[in-house]
């Protein structure tokens, strides 16, 4: 009997304690008027993306004095892990149902971004993609917005540039997976349209460690340039090394890339990267007051964070969320927010940008860049030419 008594008393006390804590929590919760859920990899081999998204988003928030359009904002970060659509969908559901977020941002991997479509459509939650770069994601729901880029968006101007330079014969060398094939198609279709010829299309297995055989094949093909697509990290470094060691530069075979000289990997290349040409939408060396302010804000937030396409994607994504909060006065109204976001035009750290109302994808300048030595002997992507404003060229293809 005694035991039952004590048990009852304990149960009563803990229930009371629970109620008090809930009561104490309630005003806290009410304080943050707007909630933003960020889904990004915070663990595993892609964790640096999460760190950069967080640095970019927090830096934007801090630059606005911690409030967006006068509303206090609560940021909720959730781990994306790796490419795992089922998990991404559950995470988004939890954010919407349990945490009651008003906006979702982030997502690195395209399959994960696709998987969120039913969740955001049903709950009318605007979702700003900070990275996932497959063209037709935004067609799958009216609540997608994207502040990164697509492969077609940066590859098409590169192909036009190659043709204009008088290059006639080009080899494409891409990693053999969906984005690589996408990049190959983008270059091939545009370069052929401009009168050039892709004389060989090499698809390199994802498990490749030794890139020398591919470098030798490119050299033997008699091409004037090689268009490449590689995921960041080791494959990137391996290919550029092979390009140098096998004398492709001396043979006059030009390197045409996109994200290969990304700031996250750039310093690791050393001198072997000097002179590589890429077409891309953001360079940390972009010379503008907006970019300087952006770099300073990010450095204040996280001194180890580089400013690259991931950081700027998160920064501009937060800008869009800011404008949506402004339009809805902090109330949850997905349709009103989307209507406001679709027509935004602003001065981004990457240059002038605008949302395309039809695709809800960002229209932006694409630049031709060359890797050079900058201040402090560090490598930079020097923008040598602007190809002007480009939208996503990948839809309907």
């Amino acid at each position, binding site marked *: 009997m005694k035991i039952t008594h004590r048990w009852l008393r304990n149960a009563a006390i803990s229930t009371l304690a629970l109620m008090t804590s809930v009561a104490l929590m309630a005003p806290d919760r009410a304080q943050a008027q707007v909630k933003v859920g960020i889904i990004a990899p915070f663990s595993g*081999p892609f*964790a*640096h993306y999460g760190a950069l998204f967080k640095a970019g988003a927090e830096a934007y928030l801090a630059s606005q004095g911690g409030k967006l359009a006068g509303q206090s904002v609560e940021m909720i970060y959730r781990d994306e892990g790796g490419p795992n659509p089922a998990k991404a969908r559950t995470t988004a559901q939890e954010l919407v149902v349990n945490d009651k977020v008003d906006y979702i941002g982030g997502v690195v991997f395209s399959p994960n971004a696709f998987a969120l479509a039913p969740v955001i459509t049903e709950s009318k939650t605007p979702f700003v993609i900070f990275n996932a770069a497959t063209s037709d994601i935004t067609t799958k729901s009216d609540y997608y917005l994207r502040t990164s880029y697509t492969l077609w968006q940066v590859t098409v101007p590169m192909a036009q540039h190659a043709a204009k330079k008088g290059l006639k014969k080009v080899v494409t060398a891409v990693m*053999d997976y969906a984005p690589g094939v996408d990049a190959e198609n983008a270059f091939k279709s545009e370069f052929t349209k401009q009168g050039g010829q892709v004389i060989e299309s*090499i*698809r*390199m*297995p*994802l*498990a*490749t*460690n*030794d890139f*020398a*055989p*591919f470098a*030798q*094949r490119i050299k*033997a093909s008699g091409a004037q340039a090689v268009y490449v697509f590689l995921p960041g*990290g*080791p494959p990137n*470094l*391996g290919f550029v*090394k092979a390009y140098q*060691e*096998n*004398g492709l530069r001396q043979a006059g075979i030009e390197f045409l890339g996109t994200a290969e000289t990304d700031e*996250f*990997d750039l310093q*690791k290349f*050393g001198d072997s990267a000097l002179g590589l040409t890429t077409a891309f939408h953001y360079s940390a060396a972009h010379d503008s007051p907006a970019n300087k302010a952006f770099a300073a804000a990010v450095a204040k937030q996280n001194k*180890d964070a580089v400013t690259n396409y991931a950081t700027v994607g998160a920064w501009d994504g937060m800008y869009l969320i800011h404008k949506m909060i402004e339009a809805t006065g902090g109330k949850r109204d997905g349709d009103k927010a989307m209507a406001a976001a679709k027509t935004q035009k602003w001065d981004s750290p990457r240059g002038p940008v605008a949302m395309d109302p039809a695709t809800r994808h960002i229209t932006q300048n694409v630049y031709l860049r060359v890797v050079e030595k900058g201040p402090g002997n560090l490598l930079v992507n020097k923008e040598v030419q602007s190809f002007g404003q480009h939208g996503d060229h990948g839809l309907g293809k």
Partner: protein
Amino acid sequence: MTLLANILIDGIAYGMVLFIISVGLSVTLGLMRFVNLAHGAFAMTGGYLASWFIRAQDWPFAFGAVGAVVLTGLLGMAIEALVLRRLYRMPELQQVLFTIGLSFLFVASANLLAGPEVQLIPLPPWLKDPIDLGIRTLPAQRLLVVLTGLLVMMISVLIMKYSRFGIWLRATVDNTQAASALGIPVEWVYALTFGAGAALAGLGGILGAELLPLEPYYPIKYLVLVLVVVAVGGMGSVAGSMLAALVLGTIDTASKYLASDWGSLFYFLVMALLLAWRPQGLLSPGRT
């Protein structure tokens, strides 16, 4: 003709890289018969140490590399004496679980201490420049790997076959109790051999870093690659590992030249065929 020469040159160079990163495992897994899935962790440790010595401390390349190899060997000995020794008599599954766990510990530590990015080992000028072979050029670093690989194989075969230590090792592995009764210091033999295996892993991590870049997930990422080489070569045969590495390296290179759309298919197809033909490996010493 040029194509054939290219395949052979790149194949041998790549095969030697495969050999140099798996020779340590052919000692610990092959000779000691300890299921050491933490091999990649020791390789990464060697690479990271070398990178730190050469890049951050400004040591000359050879100096930093030797220092890193020795330190990795000592670390291997310490871990063997403190923990792994207790696992020898346990079933293989326990060894697998423990060493995989150890690998994850190394992954997380590398991430914590050096960050997620790739670590580079700067090459001195004498290794950077391509060397002219007459028909084409080959990076000097690749030649160093080929020469070091041959040297490592010769030395280890000599030690195993002709030295007193080699006799002790073979006796200890075959029957620890009898060897101990005969006055062989079995604990030292095990510790030294494991240390040598770890040091060789470290050497592989350093010299292989040009093709297999050092990053926190290194221990898990390249595990299959090295296990295949040791399994095909034959447990306990260093020469077998070299033969397997050269065959597999050449096959992989040939498929990149001729049929790259097939991915790594031929690499694993040849592995399966070779293992079906000789389940004990190409040059197995005949023990099971």
